[in-house]
């Protein structure tokens, strides 16, 4: 599949790869330059492969309070929230952003790799509520991210000036939200295809750096933002995925997976997602074994090279209790520093390297 911006990617020299069935640019020349552009100025991403689903109906709030681990009851109109959607055993079916338009109309943006099972799940539960599920396909999503993103976008859409994080506006075909996946300020703009193509070109003509999937991954990894399928999936709960903060237990609300999470909590969570920094030069890679000093083992769920820290960094799931640790790199144990899973925010390192 191709997004409606495919020809633009080719014209810009994008190196196109297959990403879960979508032909998307890995980079436009230099993944590292693209990464730095977002940390230091601004970059744009075509994320039109993401799935957009509109939910309408009198029972949309009770429906979402059932199927999401975070609680949409706390949202006001034009506010968005990150949440996991869990199965009965507390595993993560997907992570998503829920946007409240009004009491009877919400929008979800979910992952593309999980498109089919997400829609099947949403539709299955919609049958028990008065809710319609409609996928929005004739659209693009453009993410504009970086310290200059808001200035840039507000020159086109003035209202962005007043937009707070996780708030959005929906006006004149443009759905503009203060969200992103980079650890920088920015917006994600959902718009019809023709408008999106014009907007993309306008931003490119203004000299904005287009960024591919490669930079998207290193930016989110530095920001400690989980990638579905790597850092959590249907076999791992939010509690072992650094996503406990997105689950809301208070009150009578009985969301899917709640019981399993309560049992897990009562028994004591067995493992956690941590950040790792390789002390020596080198790169940490997904799948490498983490060896704790007590002999127990964990695994790197997302590894890579941090262009900002110029170090190998990773997210890793390790058993509790935490001790100092090493990573098995091609048969050699290399010492790592264990940190909270968050390395870089707003252009700056947030870890103290030892």
């Amino acid at each position, binding site marked *: 599949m191709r997004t409606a911006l495919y020809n633009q990617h080719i014209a810009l020299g994008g190196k196109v790869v297959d990403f879960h069935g979508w032909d998307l640019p890995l980079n436009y020349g230099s993944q*590292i330059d693209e990464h730095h552009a977002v940390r230091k100025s601004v970059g744009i991403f075509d994320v039109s492969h993401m799935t957009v689903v509109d939910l309408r109906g009198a029972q949309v709030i009770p429906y979402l309070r059932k199927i999401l681990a975070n609680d949409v009851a706390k949202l006001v109109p034009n506010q968005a929230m990150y949440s996991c959607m869990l199965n009965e055993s507390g595993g993560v079916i997907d992570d998503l952003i829920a946007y409240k338009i009004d009491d009877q109309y919400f929008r979800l943006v979910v992952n593309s790799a999980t498109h089919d099972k997400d829609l099947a799940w949403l539709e299955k539960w919609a049958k028990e509520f008065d809710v319609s599920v409609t996928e929005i396909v004739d659209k693009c999503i453009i993410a504009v991210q970086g310290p200059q993103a808001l200035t840039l976008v507000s020159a086109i859409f003035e209202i962005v000036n007043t937009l707070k994080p996780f708030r959005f506006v929906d006006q004149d075909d443009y759905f503009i939200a203060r969200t992103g996946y980079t650890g920088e300020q920015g917006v994600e703009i959902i718009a019809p295809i023709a408008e999106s193509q014009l907007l993309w070109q306008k931003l490119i003509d203004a000299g904005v750096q287009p960024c591919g999937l490669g930079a998207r991954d290193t930016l989110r990894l530095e920001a400690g933002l989980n990638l579905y399928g790597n850092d959590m999936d249907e076999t791992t709960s939010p509690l072992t995925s650094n996503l406990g903060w997105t689950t809301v237990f208070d009150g009578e609300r009985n969301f899917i997976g709640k019981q399993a999470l309560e049992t897990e909590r009562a028994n004591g969570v067995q493992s956690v997602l941590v950040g790792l920094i390789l002390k020596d030069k*080198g790169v940490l890679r997904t799948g490498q074994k983490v060896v704790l000093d007590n002999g127990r083992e964990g695994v790197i769920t997302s590894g890579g090279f941090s262009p900002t820290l110029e170090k190998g960094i990773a997210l890793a799931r390790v058993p509790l209790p935490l001790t100092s640790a090493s990573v098995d790199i091609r048969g050699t144990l290399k010492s790592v520093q264990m940190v909270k899973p968050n390395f870089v925010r707003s252009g700056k390192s947030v870890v103290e390297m030892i």
Partner: protein
Amino acid sequence: MSTVPEELKFTPSHEWVLVEDDIATVGITDFAQTLLGELVYVELPDVGDVIDQGEDCAVVESVKAASDVYCPVSGEILEVNEALADEPELVNDDPYGNGWLFKIQIDDLGQLEELLTPEEYQKQVAEEAH
């Protein structure tokens, strides 16, 4: 497809070899570095290591993946490119020049016969690119 330097010999695993007397300078080809993408780390052998032909003796790590480098000929490592520790991107920028990896004292000059000529390597690359 870029042309490959005429004075070099090649391996099917995308190493190049420059032979001067009984010393071989080894690197990875332009095709290999393009495929790997931007390098962020290069792990080199130690000077004095004795390595067999075909043995993995270095690792080049890009933003995408780690890839082994196989020794084109048997021998003893005489020198490694220290500059790559701080500037691994030299391999991307100048794969046949400043991006060289190591120099090795060739044990058996006969092994050079097994390496590919520029024409043969070019042909292999053309096939792999499809």
